[in-house]
């Protein structure tokens, strides 16, 4: 089976966000594979181990994303591809990313494409479904279970807390939701092997993409932090009084009940 995983390099969830000069500061920050993409990698490896085939991990960005690709290879992916957009593109949006990824994938005849249902940085959740539609294949988002028998695919997906069971077929793009699996940690032999696995680097030229074709449709004009909350009030006194004071504050001061 020809399996592709689309991954994104994101800030570690532990990181505080610092804005200076209107931009998010990246200096000194730790980066990880977007946690939802880790579920996608784990699932891809599991599917390959069961059905055979090859797992290729694909990302876009600058040189530094190689680190996350090596981690995916160490987990067990077979090949990695970095589409380096660093020199060509200043402004990107989801339209841009999906176009580039679809141009890369269009002649690869993927049976299954996996990615996270959302990236924890931008949080739009658009790129997976956009890529599927550009490739003309079906997609299912926020999946928590995946079974493949022949060309029949049985899926459970999370829809706002409820579980939807459905049937579809390959080729298919799915986006991973938490609960799909427990991503493995790279083993030491895995890390050693990963160093020798193929990592291909492409630029927009290699994909015959003109910058004009991928010009962003939307534009971020400002990035800022939410206003700091003033310190709250820790209630004091007898617990019974605290509870009745709280109820009265919620009703009369905060007016939320």
């Amino acid at each position: 089976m020809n399996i592709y995983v689309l991954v994104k390099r994101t800030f570690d969830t532990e990181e505080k966000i610092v804005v200076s000069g209107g931009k998010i500061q990246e200096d000194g920050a730790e980066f990880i594979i977007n946690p939802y993409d880790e579920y996608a990698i784990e699932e891809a490896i599991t599917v390959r181990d069961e059905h055979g085939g090859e797992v290729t991990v694909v990302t876009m960005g600058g040189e530094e994303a190689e680190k996350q690709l090596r981690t995916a290879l160490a987990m067990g992916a077979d090949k990695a591809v970095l589409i380096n957009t660093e020199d060509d593109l200043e402004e990107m949006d989801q339209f841009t990313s999906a176009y580039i990824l679809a141009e890369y994938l269009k002649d690869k005849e993927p049976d299954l494409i996996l990615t996270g249902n959302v990236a924890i940085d931008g949080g739009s959740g658009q790129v997976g479904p956009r890529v599927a539609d550009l490739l003309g294949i079906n997609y299912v988002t926020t999946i928590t279970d995946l079974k493949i028998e022949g060309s029949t695919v049985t899926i459970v997906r999370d829809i706002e807390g409820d579980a939807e069971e459905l049937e579809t077929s390959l080729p298919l793009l799915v986006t991973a939701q938490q609960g799909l699996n427990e991503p493995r940690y790279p083993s030491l032999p895995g890390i050693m092997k990963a160093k020798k696995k193929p990592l291909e680097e492409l630029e927009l030229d290699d994909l015959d993409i003109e910058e004009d074709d991928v010009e962003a449709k939307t534009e971020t004009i400002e990035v800022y932090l939410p206003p700091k909350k003033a310190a709250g009030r820790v209630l004091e006194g007898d617990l019974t009084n605290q509870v009745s004071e709280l109820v009265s504050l919620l009703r009369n001061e905060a007016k939320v009940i």
Partner: protein
Amino acid sequence: MSKKVLVLAETREGALRNVSFEAIAAAKQVSDGGEVVAVLLGDAVSEFGAELINYGADRVVTVEHPHLKHYTSDGYGQALMAVVEQESPEALVFGHTAVGKDLSPKIATKLQSGLISDVTAIEGEGDDAVFVRPIFSGKAFEKVKNKDGLLFFTVRPNNIAPLAKEERSGDVSSLSVDITNLRTIIKNVVRKSAEGVDLSEAKVIIAGGRGVKSADGFAPLQELANLLGGAVGASRGACDADYVDYSLQIGQTGKVVTPDLYIAAGISGAIQHLAGMSNSKVIVAINKDPEANIFKVADYGIVGDLFEVIPMLTEEFKKVM
């Protein structure tokens, strides 16, 4: 320039969702006096048309088909594109719901448009509208403008105020669409969300962490949630420990919520959890540890055992409500 705006309205468990009324209000704001047309897709939905008009839609178009009983991106995609072809809108607004999140990227791709997802506020009107959306799960925000082509955005439930409901009149028409070649067949939907209040739309959330200690420990939280018409949520710790399903997880991985009232019980307040809830209007923290991080973002705090405090709170609310 005035814009004709199409709004995808949604029903859930036999009623229109609030987010649809919020989307209509957002549509009005960007329409600059243009027409706001609400779209309803389903197997039997035309009865809801009048209510959408009362909430501010100028007109309603319904597409009814047995294949639209359950949402699929193919079925809804075909129906919505048929409406787009008929109406030629200059802007589209969806709710940032399970359906909206799944369908909007497909429609944006077909229309070769941008898509501004998960909008929590709109500044300015008409062509000057600027869209505010959380990034890093609410650790920061960005303001986004549409640069080129059709304007398309989704609105996060509970953030944009709906227009006041009033008796209005407007046309409710139906469009017949041939829905074919569905590549996904829905077999079954298992209801897991307790009491039917969805976390993303809940006005009140009672969330528990590791301090709740067990699945049974969530019972008093659920009781308080039921009383206040709210929903129960959880921290990652509580989900990892298997006290509750991951679908209840609030945080940077998990759901990002902005209820009117968020009560955090036995939650220490890891940075990932704060990202998912710190933009709630009012936050109450209940924790045995007075040093717990959660008190830093709380408006009101009680230092104490949640198993004592929560039942007392429930009783106290019962007295006054």
